[in-house]
C-alpha cells in the first residue's frame, strides 16, 4: 500500500479530462455528505432487522434489496460510508503526519538524530505495508481506530521516504541557495521555502494515497478486524454476504461497488490536482 503512492502519482501525466475531474469531485462530495449526514440520502434504519423481509431482491421498497437479517442494503451502504472514511482519512492523516516528522527529521536533523531515524524508516520499509498492518492489529486488537492506526503504521514509512527525498531535493534547489546568498535566516528558509514546497505536493499525494488506505481498511474489515458487528462498514458488509453469493449476490455487490466508486473518484481527484500542480515538480 505504501510504495503505490508515488507510483500512482507518477501517472499524473495521464491527466483526467476536465468533465471527468468534475464528476469525480462531485462523487467525493456526495460520499463525504453520506458520511457526515446519511439521513439526507435514506430514512431507513441501517440497524433495524426484520426476519420477515430477509434476503429480498432489489425492489422499489429496498433499492438494493435486504440482507440475511432483513436490513436495508442501501441504508447500510450509505451509513457504511462513515466508518470506511473514518478509517481511510484517519489512517492517512496519521501516516502523513508521522511521515512528515520522520522524513524531515531524517533529512534535516543533526547526524545523531537523523541516522537512527533513517535506519528506522529503512527497517520499516522492509515489511510489505499490509503485513505490517496485520502485525499491529494482532497486537492492538480489532476496531475502527485500531485498523486506522495499523494502516497508518504500514503507510507512514513510505511517506517518510518521499518527504526525506523531497526535502533533500528542495534543499539543494537553486532558490534555496539564492535565499542563502541573499542572507535570509535559516529558520525563515525552512518555514517559507522548504516546508511549503515539500508539504504541498505531499498533500496531493496523500489524496491519491487515501484511495489505497480505504482499500486496505476494507480488506482488514473484511477479515473481521473492523468495527464491532452491527456497525455498518463496507468491508464487513461484503463479508456478511459471502455465504449468500449463490442466492443473493446483491448483499456483497453493493458495498463493493461503493468501495470501487469511492477509490476511483478519490484517485481521479488526486491525479487531477497533481497534474494541476505541474506534476508535483
Amino acid at each position, binding site marked *: *500500500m*505504501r*510504495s*503505490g503512492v508515488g*507510483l*500512482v502519482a*507518477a*501517472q499524473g*501525466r*495521464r491527466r483526467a479530462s476536465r468533465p471527468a475531474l468534475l464528476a469525480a469531485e462531485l462523487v467525493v462530495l456526495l460520499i463525504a455528505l453520506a458520511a457526515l449526514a446519511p439521513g439526507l440520502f435514506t430514512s431507513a434504519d441501517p440497524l433495524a432487522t426484520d426476519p420477515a423481509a430477509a434476503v429480498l431482491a432489489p425492489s422499489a421498497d429496498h433499492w438494493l434489496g435486504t440482507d440475511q437479517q432483513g436490513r436495508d442494503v442501501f441504508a447500510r451502504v450509505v451509513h457504511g460510508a462513515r466508518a470506511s472514511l473514518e478509517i481511510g482519512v484517519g489512517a492517512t492523516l496519521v501516516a502523513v503526519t508521522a511521515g512528515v516528522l520522520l522524513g524531515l527529521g531524517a533529512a534535516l536533523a543533526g547526524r545523531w538524530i537523523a541516522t537512527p531515524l533513517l*535506519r*528506522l524508516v*529503512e*527497517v*520499516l520499509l*522492509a*515489511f*510489505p*505495508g*499490509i*503485513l*505490517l498492518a*496485520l*502485525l499491529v*492489529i*494482532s*497486537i492492538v*486488537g480489532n476496531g475502527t481506530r485500531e485498523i486506522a492506526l495499523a494502516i497508518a503504521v504500514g503507510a507512514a514509512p513510505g511517506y517518510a521516504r518521499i518527504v526525506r527525498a523531497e526535502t533533500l531535493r528542495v534543499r539543494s534547489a537553486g532558490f534555496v541557495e539564492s535565499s542563502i546568498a541573499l542572507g535570509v535566516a535559516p529558520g525563515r528558509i525552512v518555514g517559507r521555502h522548504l516546508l511549503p514546497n515539500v508539504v504541498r505536493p505531499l498533500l496531493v499525494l496523500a489524496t491519491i494515497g487515501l*484511495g489505497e488506505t480505504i*482499500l486496505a481498511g*476494507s*480488506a482488514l474489515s*473484511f*477479515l*473481521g*478486524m473492523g468495527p464491532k458487528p452491527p456497525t455498518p462498514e463496507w*468491508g464487513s458488509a*461484503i463479508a456478511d*454476504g*459471502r455465504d449468500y*453469493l*449463490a442466492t443473493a*449476490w446483491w448483499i*456483497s*455487490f453493493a458495498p*463493493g461497488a461503493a*468501495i*470501487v466508486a469511492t*477509490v*476511483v473518484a478519490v*484517485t*481521479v481527484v488526486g491525479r487531477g490536482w497533481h497534474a494541476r500542480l505541474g506534476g508535483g515538480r
Partner: protein
Amino acid sequence: MVAVMVGAATVAFLALELVADDPVRTVIGLRPATPELLAQVRSDLGLDRSLPERWLLWVGGIAHGDLGTSYQLQRPVLEIVGEQLLPTVELALTAFLLGAAGGTLLALATAGRRPRARAASGAAELLALSTPPFWLGIVLLTVFSFQLGWFPVIGAGESGLRALVLPAVTLAVPIAAMLAQVLRDGLEQALAQPFATTARARGISELRLRTHHALRHALLAVMTLSGWIVGSLLGGAVVVETVFGRQGIGRVAATAISSADVPTVMGVVLLSSFFFVVVNALVDLLYPLVDPRLRGRA
C-alpha cells in the same frame, strides 16, 4: 541487507515484548494461575531473562530458523509456515506471471497509439486498481463458480489447476493494471527522447524502435515496481486465500490474527519481509545490467 533483517527482527522482538503478558495467559488457558505455574510458564517462554539477553536469543534463533512457538498450536512457527508455504508460492508465482504477461501486452499495444484505445485502457486500469481484491474474488466466484459452474467453489484439493485459476486471476488483475500503466508511461517517455528521433532518422521501423530502444528504458521504470508487486502478492494472498478457502501462509496469518497468536503472525511477517528484502536486493543487482550508467557509481 543483513542489517535491515536484524532491524526487522528487532522490531518484531519489541512488538512481542509489548504483548509479553498475554502469552502467559494464553498458555495457561483455563488452569488456575498459581504463582508456581506462572513462574514455570514464564521460564518456559524465556521471559525471566534480561531484555538484552532475550534479544540476543531471539535474533540468534531467527538466524538458525527458529521463529518461536505458536501460542495457539504449541508448535514451532517455522514448521507451521513451512507446511503452508507451497500453495502460497504456487498461487503467487502464477499470479505474477499472469499479471506480467497481461500488463506487458497491454502496454505494448497501447503506448503512443490511438488516443481512444489509451483512454479505454487507462480507465480499465484505474478500475482494476480501485477494486478490492477480495471483492473481485467474490464477484468472480459468483459469476464463474455459482452461475456458470466453470470452476470449483472451494479451493485446492480436488482439481489443483482448475482451482488455481480464479484466485490467481484475482491476484493478477491489479498487478497487470499497475504494470501496464508504468510500462506504457515509460515507453512513451522513451519514445519522446531525442535518441528516438535519431533512431527514427536512421530509417528503422517503429517496431524495432520499441523493442530495441524504448523497452529497455521502460524496464527501468518497471523495476521500481518490484517492491510494490511483492507486497501486493503477499498481502493479497491473505485475503484471496480466505475468500477462496485455499491453504497457505496467508490463511495461517489471518487465522492467527483472529486468535491473537502473535508469534505466528510475526513468523509470517518476518518471512515475507525476508522475501521482500531478497527481491529488492536482486533488483538492485539488476539495475546496473539494464542501465550501464549506474555502473561504477556503487
